[in-house]
């Protein structure tokens, strides 16, 4: 070699170089990749305290301001069979909404990674595309669930009992919902290359989804057109099990139950909670599958 004469005096590293052999790609490798991609999401969430706090503001506004303000309206209407506090009613909906927003943000981190180049670091690694996408989806869902856990702690403000079983049930349901939404976001992120258009699009998709989900009003007795729209909204099936979980832990008359927790009906048939959960989870897996295909194709 021509330049060895100019080489800096070799340091001790030259004598004891730790040599690494990168193993052949396999399932074990891919699992490690899933784990580290997921781990990174958690580290970033943990470090970004501002995001955690700002994620709290919206739900608190809904619960305390809207909930309190509008319950005056309801109380004046009165009720024969007692009342359900509006805050209690919208609590599961608020949980679902905040999880949804956090999940979208997590999915948006793929766009962020692309813009800041980090996606390239992942794409040139000898791991499968699916490992990266699965890691992102589960990581995003976990982060959203953690954010949801903070909201769940506000249960007392909404008159929802602190029952450990209820809280666990809610967290589980939130995870599944968040998983589906992250899958949706990651699928979109595979094609969208700028943060602005990603968040613009997400806003566009999320507002109607939120309003048509039954997060803020009961799904029974709606006009036909609205009923049909809500039944086609995936978020409906994520909110209803949450509400059901909350109401089954409340002490309310069957009459109120029928008004405020009527369940989702398909032409008169009440969709069971397990099926709702399966629908949401299945959608999550399907969307994630599409996302994997899109990242493979871009290869």
């Amino acid at each position, binding site marked *: 070699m*021509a*330049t060895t004469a100019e080489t800096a005096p070799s340091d001790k590293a030259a004598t004891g170089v*730790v040599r690494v052999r*990168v*193993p052949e790609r396999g399932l074990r490798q891919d699992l*490690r990749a899933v784990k*580290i991609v997921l781990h990174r999401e958690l580290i970033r969430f943990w470090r*970004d305290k501002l995001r955690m706090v700002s994620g709290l503001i919206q739900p608190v506004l809904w619960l305390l301001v809207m909930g309190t303000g509008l319950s005056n309206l309801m109380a004046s209407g009165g009720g024969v069979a007692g009342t359900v506090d509006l805050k209690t009613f919208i609590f599961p909906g608020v949980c679902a909404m905040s999880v949804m927003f956090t999940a979208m943000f997590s999915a948006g981190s793929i766009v962020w990674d692309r813009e800041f*180049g980090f996606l390239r670091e992942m794409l040139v690694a*000898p791991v499968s595309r699916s490992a990266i996408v699965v890691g992102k989806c589960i990581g995003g869902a976990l982060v959203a669930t953690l954010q949801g856990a903070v909201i769940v702690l506000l249960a007392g403000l909404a008159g929802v009992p602190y029952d450990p079983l209820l809280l666990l049930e809610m967290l589980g349901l939130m995870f599944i919902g968040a998983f589906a939404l992250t899958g949706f976001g990651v699928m979109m992120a595979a094609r969208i290359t700028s943060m602005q258009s990603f968040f613009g699009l997400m806003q566009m998709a999320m507002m109607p989804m939120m309003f048509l989900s039954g997060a803020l009003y009961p799904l029974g007795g709606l006009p036909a057109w609205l009923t049909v729209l809500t039944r086609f909204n995936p978020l409906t099936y994520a909110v209803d099990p949450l509400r059901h979980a909350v109401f089954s832990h409340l002490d309310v008359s069957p009459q109120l139950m029928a008004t405020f927790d009527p369940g989702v009906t398909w032409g008169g048939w009440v969709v069971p909670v397990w099926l709702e959960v399966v629908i949401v989870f299945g959608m999550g897996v399907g969307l994630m599958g599409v996302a994997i295909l899109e990242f493979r194709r871009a290869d």
Partner: protein
Amino acid sequence: MPDGGPAVEVDGLTKRFGDVEAVRGIEFAVRPGEIFGFLGPNGAGKSTTINMLCTLLRPTGGRARVAGHDVVAERDGVRRNIGLVFQDPTLDGYLSGEQNLRFHAELYGVPRSLTGDRIRQVLEMVGLWDRRGDRVQTYSGGMKRRLEIARGLLHSPRVLFLDEPTVGLDPQTRASIWEYIRRLQHAEEITIFMTTHYMDEAEFCERIAIMDSGRIVALDTPEALKAGVGEDRIRIQTADDEAAIAAIGDRFGLEAVVSEGAVTFSVASGEAFVPRLFAELGVPIRSVNVARPSLDDVFMSFTGSTIRDAEASAGDRMRVMMRAARR
């Protein structure tokens, strides 16, 4: 990788983005352990070539093998054996330096028993061990680049690709990056493939390929390329110019003249000649100045324009390609 085979072997490699032909059938081979440079203006097709060699872009035509693996058919084989430092930073600023490396180690499947030692080793090599716990956001540009180099080395690749490793850095930092590159070539027995559009940096490479408008127009050692253009010019100030001119003619068989108050003559490799000049001239020398034909001259002679002019005219072409290559 078969021992003794070329580290990088390229045959008829072509890349087209729509109507723009960014790389037009190039051909070269890089020897194991070599520092090989791609020199050319922005938009010449250097980054496109690197992206194809790194499996990030699929070639339109031709073949390329890196570390013995085909870049299309055996992408994972290539990916396992290469390290990359991109032109734009690809670090996660929210993570610490060490966390960035740990992420990389997990992604590449570095055995856990080795990860800690290896991370320490590469961080010490680039002088960032003390800052390992700090968020990358707080690093300077030079530190980030050093961290990327450390990361590119973490999995002991056979070939390290550096795409404009010093672009946007101040001269002092550039010099220190080069120091690291040469040191690690020595310590890691690694092949280094880099692109640059700085002439002075191309000098550090053992061989360089000059690329212009998607083609390789010249490929040789920097010395040979410059020698092909012309000889070095040496200017000395002496106590006695007449005697010096006579001595240069007698001892070295060279013809010298007095120009602008200095004895001036031309010789093939000036720097190597200076010690002999001092030892054998016999006339006291007060100062010496060696002016070499620069790689600028070389570039000019092969492409008919300076690298800066070439960059200006390649600007439009490059914008088209960057849009197409963005992903």
